[in-house]
């Protein structure tokens, strides 16, 4: 029977005898027999690793949408970036992989310092002074941000731009059922949030995305002004790659930046584990969700790192905690620190620039195709939305036949009618993404295939 238990039969017997027991089953004598499982679990018997590997190989073969097989023009928060060998090697070091939360700083300086470096990098990219040690993903980071805003203002109404990723908006609504937050989605006009018509009473948070999920770079002055007028917190969801060259969340006047950190060294991995980015102003420090690493000294006055301001957290504050988060996504944060360290100041800007160059190169050709129009005339960064004369799913299916994962049908993301796009457009719209991995010849072939697919 294959497993990872070291005990020999003799040792097992000796241990049982030390306890005055005759069998392993007798360890459970105090469990009422009426509820005990008779006959064990109805699961297949254990198999050796090579046998399980063979079963899994059948599953991997059934996943046809790999980036090896289909050239990826899909994004929407999950991006096909280069992950260099050095990042894979360092982030898979078992000292990082098989540790747990750094509760004992004396033997956890590795993780603690890596998180400190990560916090510094995210703080700089956000233009905000405080970044936490990570949350689950972008969507759940936004949930924590709106909870922070409601806590700070005492007001439960959230004005959320319909340009925020539809899944993120959906997750905020799900959790609002518990907290009682009132979610008001503010519609887009020409791909840009129309803040003018919203009611300004009782607002706790104004939430926008930069760029929004259609790829559009919105001028954030309006959102910031609205937040100031309502005395609400301004929460900005950012693409962290674009953030390296764009005006930062802090410069736009945001109180909180949230983001999806997957682009920093984490593979597409069917959506997880990813990395929830969270940064905020000093004013919100005491309401920060999750862990925070701070610098201090040890008894010999050497620099040391430790999790700090712990009194906010669930294991101490219990029902009054700022969040229920315990386990987060530390390994992805460490991975991000490695990836960002490798890209460095110049490399990250170069990746962002190449994404924008590729996207604009593709866009200019695609909108020249008969029956293809831009959803918005507003500026964009690395992705953009197109409306075609055909159903988006038909176009995308045809692109698969040509070897492309050609983007995402917006109706698939929204799951139905949505204030981000008109009913007459939504089923015919796709959002297309270009990363630094896409070559000119891939883009040229994609454009040709796209023209064929909509014809």
């Amino acid at each position, binding site marked *: *029977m*294959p*497993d990872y*238990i*070291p005990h020999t039969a003799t040792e097992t017997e000796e*241990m049982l005898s030390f*306890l005055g027991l005759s069998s*392993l089953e007798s360890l*459970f004598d*105090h*469990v*009422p027999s009426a*509820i005990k499982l008779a006959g064990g679990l109805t699961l297949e018997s*254990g198999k050796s690793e090579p046998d399980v590997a063979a079963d*899994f190989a059948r599953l991997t073969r059934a*996943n*046809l*949408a790999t980036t*090896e097989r289909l050239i990826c023009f899909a994004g929407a*928060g*999950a991006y096909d970036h280069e992950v260099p060998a050095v990042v894979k090697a360092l982030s898979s070091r*078992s000292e*990082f*992989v098989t*540790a*747990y*939360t750094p509760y004992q700083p*004396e033997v956890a300086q590795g*993780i603690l*310092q890596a998180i400190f470096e990560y916090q510094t990098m995210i703080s*700089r990219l956000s233009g905000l002074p405080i970044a936490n040690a990570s949350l*689950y993903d972008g969507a759940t980071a936004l949930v924590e941000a709106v909870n922070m805003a409601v806590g700070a203002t005492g007001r439960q109404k959230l004005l959320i731009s319909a340009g925020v*990723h539809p899944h993120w908006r959906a997750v905020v609504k799900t*959790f609002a059922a*518990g907290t009682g937050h009132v979610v008001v989605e503010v519609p887009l006009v020409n791909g840009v949030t129309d803040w003018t018509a919203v009611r300004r009473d009782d607002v706790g948070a104004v939430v926008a995305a930069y760029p929004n999920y259609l790829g559009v770079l919105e001028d954030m002055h309006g959102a910031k002004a609205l937040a100031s007028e309502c005395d609400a917190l301004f929460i900005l969801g950012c693409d962290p790659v674009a953030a390296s060259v*764009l005006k930062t969340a802090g410069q736009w006047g945001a109180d909180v930046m949230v983001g999806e950190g997957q682009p920093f060294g984490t593979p597409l991995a*069917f959506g997880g*584990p*990813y990395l929830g980015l969270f940064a905020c102003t000093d004013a919100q420090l005491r309401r920060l969700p999750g862990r*925070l690493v701070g610098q201090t000294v*040890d*008894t010999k006055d*050497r620099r040391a790192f430790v999790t700090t301001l712990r009194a906010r*957290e669930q*294991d101490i*504050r219990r*029902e009054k905690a700022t969040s*229920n988060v315990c*386990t*987060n996504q*530390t*390994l992805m944060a460490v991975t991000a620190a490695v990836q960002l360290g490798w890209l*460095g*100041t110049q490399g*990250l800007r*170069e990746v962002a620039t190449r994404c*924008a160059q*590729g996207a*604009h*190169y593709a866009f200019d050709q695609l909108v020249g195709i008969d029956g293809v129009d831009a959803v918005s005339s507003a500026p964009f960064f690395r992705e953009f939305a197109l409306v075609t004369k055909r159903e988006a799913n038909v176009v995308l299916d045809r692109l698969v036949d040509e070897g492309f994962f050609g983007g995402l049908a917006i109706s698939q993301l929204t799951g139905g009618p949505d204030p981000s796009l008109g009913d007459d457009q939504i089923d015919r719209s796709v959002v297309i993404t270009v990363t630094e991995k896409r070559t000119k010849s891939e883009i040229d072939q994609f454009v040709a295939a796209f023209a064929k697919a909509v014809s």
Partner: protein
Amino acid sequence: MVARIAPGGRASSAPLLGTDTEPTIFEMSSPGRSAFQLRSTFVPATPLTELIATEHLGDHVIDIAEVSERDLVAHFTRLSHRQFSVDLGAYPLGSCTMKYNPKFCDAVAADAGFNSVHPAAPAALSQGWLELMVTLETKLCEITGMAAATLQPAAGAAGELTGLLLMRAYHEANGQVRSRVIIPDSAHGTNPASVTLGGYEVTTIPSDERGLVDLAALKAALGPDVAGIMLTNPNTVGLFEEEITEIAAAVHEVGGLLYYDGANLNAILGVVRPGDMGFDIVHMNLHKTFATPHGGGGPGAGPVAVSSRIAAYLPGPKPTLMADGTYDWTTPERSIGRVHGWHGNAMVLARALAYINVHGGDGLTRVAQYAVLNANWLRERLRDTLPAAYDRTCMHECVLTSSQIKADHQVRALDIAKSLLEEGFHAPTVYFPLIVDEALMFEPTETESPQTLEALAEALERIAQRAAEDPEAVRTSPHSTPVTRVDEARAARRLIATEDAASRNTP
């Protein structure tokens, strides 16, 4: 500029597990140095200022770091040498289940056929992932005795909150307004925090002198306004709630639901199932029970399984086996909605399924048996050094107390934990559960050998002896770790959470 660069890139001279301070990556940076290499794309290199309106472009270059690849590798490798891990040695951190993480499970998940699939890929092109998820859901339901499951929650606490929202949706659909959720005083902190976020008030009930739920206190707290109870079984003291059937009957009688915190599910695999105990909603910590690596604090995965009457409320979209034998996404009729940006921590799910398949039903039962054997052996072995807080057969972990050592020598549980670091073991969980004085919670796990357990016991005996002979040495331990005790008060008082804050604080 160069003058402020700290020494770095000294891999050849850095001692293993050395006590030298490692410079930060920022201190190692040298302006103009770089490591990155990107592919040749031949895309026209139009300047960014011609593509993006100036009002959107940042007005300064954001400084990240400027190091060579060689120095980057040395830096993070040296950091890894300053980090304890399961792969390095025994990690008996109670409640966290730090067992061996099979390398095989990492390897199968890392296959490009899983790893390089976009989460929005059409179902027809990701059948392998959907089948994996449906298979895992089915197996988790069999293991817990439930009817249906969601894999979306990214960690145990996310599972708890999802479970509470399911509880709320169920009661609301039945026209019930209920305001309170009961939790025992021994519960994990995530339970009360999740209850608040679920929109309920916490009612805490005491444990009795056995360390178990006080049934009379529970009954007194029950009423028509109770939405449910959250229980961990075995509980956080490591004891099985023997009156669970009576507890379930009492809660169900007032129309409440039973929520099972699966933090300790590893203790009962194949022996007894939450569904058979009367639970309605169960979360599992796959990173604990099914040995996926904890990653220095995550990622985990916190799937939730429910009985049939709650299945219609589960989050969606859900991977589903269709009538024609293919897999597709469907949303349950009364779904509470999404609780994750995509489908959950998919790679963790793949590892957990690999672990379950290697073990099979019989192997999982052995996991529980040996986890319980090891914990009881350790409890008994340490009887004269650190007695158990409750002298009963424990499950997968034992809560010991050092209150006598504190009384005799003014050496605290924390000091004992710190001394254990010096002995080459990770510390147990201390001061939890809150109801035990000077608590030391050991969870040896099934993958530690009898020899390792004996070495752990002997180390604790040495520490107890030292506490009697030279208490100051224990109180100031550890002495040989990469850093000694750190000034936590200073970290909180003068917060330095980034390099930039550190620079501002340097005179």
